[in-house]
């Protein structure tokens, strides 16, 4: 029983850590399905985490404590979307190198976020700790089921939103005209272009979705785990999310699975202290675990052949 309890806890915490990855990876999915590589997901998460911390703080101060986290969430989505426009304009309209611009967005976002934090919080490099963030929601009846109840039905609202978005994404991508056209733009843009579909428009949408969703991903970390924003709130999750897109073969449900796999590796960190045998292993190795796992997953090459064919290539109508 003890073991089952712990397993349930493990799954619960996995969901906590996976949620941010799911949001961000779905964002990356839409961008890449439209053909645009977005290495800047990390920076977009940073922007989202920052915006959520600040907006929630101000909302609490304005007296709207109940809805404060939700306001934070929305602010994060909007702020992330705005930042992603930098990436979009640069890579789509001006055809800059997508990888380089992504790295630049990362550097720029962090700098902007810390600068604004210092300006708004009297020189401190962290936002104040929020008193009211998301709390776990117990789904009636379902959360009382032994083991599974604790594992799956006592989660933050953001987790449920993330899963819902994943399901919606699957439907949109594979069953609607929008999804068909988006995928066409990512596989063979000139096919779409020559039937009158605007490659530019769909790629902008793809990148903006990545900004919106990654913003939500960053906000999730602030509003469920750390309760504030500092320079190390986002530490590589954006890149792990990219690996989740590859591992999940650019399919929303696969991406969710991959994100959970990586979330699990992060959850293990918390459990290291609980067991005798794991206490022997130096903590540094538990910290390394998510990154090592990501690397191993990449090395196995799973997903490598499934990338959208035109991924990473700027579309130049003159060279049809």
């Amino acid at each position, binding site marked *: 029983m003890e073991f089952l309890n712990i397993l349930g806890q493990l799954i619960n915490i996995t969901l906590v850590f996976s949620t941010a990855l799911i949001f961000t990876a779905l964002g990356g999915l839409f961008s890449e399905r439209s053909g645009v590589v977005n290495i800047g997901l990390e920076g977009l998460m940073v922007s989202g985490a920052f915006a959520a911390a600040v907006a929630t703080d101000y909302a609490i101060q304005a007296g709207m404590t109940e809805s404060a986290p939700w306001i934070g969430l929305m602010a994060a989505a909007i702020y992330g979307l705005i930042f992603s426009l930098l990436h979009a304009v*640069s*890579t789509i309209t001006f055809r800059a190198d997508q990888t380089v611009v992504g790295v630049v967005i990362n550097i720029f976002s*962090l700098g902007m976020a810390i*600068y604004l934090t210092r300006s708004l919080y009297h020189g401190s490099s962290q936002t104040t700790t929020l008193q009211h963030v998301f709390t776990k929601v117990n789904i009636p009846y379902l959360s009382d089921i032994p083991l599974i109840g604790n594992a799956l039905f006592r989660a933050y609202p953001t987790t449920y939103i993330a899963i819902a978005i994943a399901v919606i994404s699957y439907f949109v991508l594979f069953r609607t005209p929008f999804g068909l056209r988006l995928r066409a733009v990512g596989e063979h843009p000139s096919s779409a272009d020559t039937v009158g579909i605007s490659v530019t428009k769909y790629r902008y949408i793809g990148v903006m979705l990545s900004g919106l969703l990654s913003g939500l991903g960053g906000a999730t970390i602030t509003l469920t785990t750390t309760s504030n924003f500092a320079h190390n709130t986002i530490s590589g999750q954006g890149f792990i999310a990219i690996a989740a897109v590859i591992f999940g073969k650019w399919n929303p449900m696969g991406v969710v699975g991959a994100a959970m796999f990586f979330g699990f590796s992060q959850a293990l960190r918390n459990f290291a202290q609980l067991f005798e045998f794991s206490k022997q292993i*130096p903590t540094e190795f538990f910290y*390394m675990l998510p990154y090592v796992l990501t*690397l191993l997953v990449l090395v196995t090459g799973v997903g490598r052949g499934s990338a959208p064919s035109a991924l990473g290539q700027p579309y130049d109508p003159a060279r049809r």
Partner: protein
Amino acid sequence: MDYIKKIFNSSSLLVPLVSILLGLLTGAIVMWFGGYDPIAAYSSLVSRLFSSPYNMGEAVRSITPLIFTGIAVAFAFRTGLFNIGVEGQFMMGMTGATLVGVLLDLPWFIHAPLAVVTGAVFGGLWAAIAGYLKAARGVNEVISAIMLNWIALFLSNFIVVKFLVMEGQQKSHPIKESAMLKIDWLVQALNSARMHWGTLVAIVCIVLFYIILWRTKIGYEMRAVGLNPEAAHYAGMNVKSTMVKSMFISGVFAGLGGVFEMLGVFGYQTVMAATWGYGFDGIAVALLGGNTPIGVFLGAILFGGLNYGSAGMSFGADVPPEVVRIVIGSIIFFVASHGIVKWILKPFLRKRANNRKEAA
């Protein structure tokens, strides 16, 4: 001579220069919106750099690692690879040097060079991992390098804690004097600014950067692979091993940056919460410098100066020093999106062309 002419060719210089201006402008706008005084801020920055011998020395100290990391990134770029792993390679370089510096006891003419070489090789091998993964398994080198950065951080922490740590502290024993590479008389002369031989080595590396890529056969191969790996394969070059070799060399440059931070500046290594950031700044330097030796040198001076001078901004004008990160970020945003710069310049360039036509 022709090479010098080529670098200062007007069109290739225009984008970086305009990007710098636009970046500074962006920083000014951001500051102005925040209610700060951009002019006071920038002038405090500049004055900090030149205000005293100590500050000038420290500015040089602050620029040195950027030269190393800038060369590392630029070298890799020239061979078609994006070495984002410089952060981790820098860290491994530090760790390698510290290991030799703390644990071994040797006469100075062996100890110091051994520490340098060990750190450099650590950095090179760490980079070669990413290179090998890309060449042999087609793994995207950006993501793998980022993962390796984090792994390097925790691995270094582990090594410090396990082998090098002082009782009850979060830092290692000091590196033995026989391994240190400070330039003592210069330190004295500049009121304790931390001057070290690494600066000289960095300048040598710039020359090496040029020589390797443009004067040797292996550099020829690397450039060919970087520009057109298919043609390189057709021509009989071993594309995979060339990629790994070039990542190794790039990692050596990055590792040297870390080496001299240990052997020339700090003298001990702590358990760290995050990597130092010189790697990402190296990317900025390489981009601004157009991946050329002189460009990297000048870019390192600019960004190193901005970084060191930023502390002056908070003292002098009460501006958060991170605004300099925004300036640097904006500069490289404009360099990377040179299409935007050219678009902004279109009206000016057309006027110049028209004036030329009329004059002709």
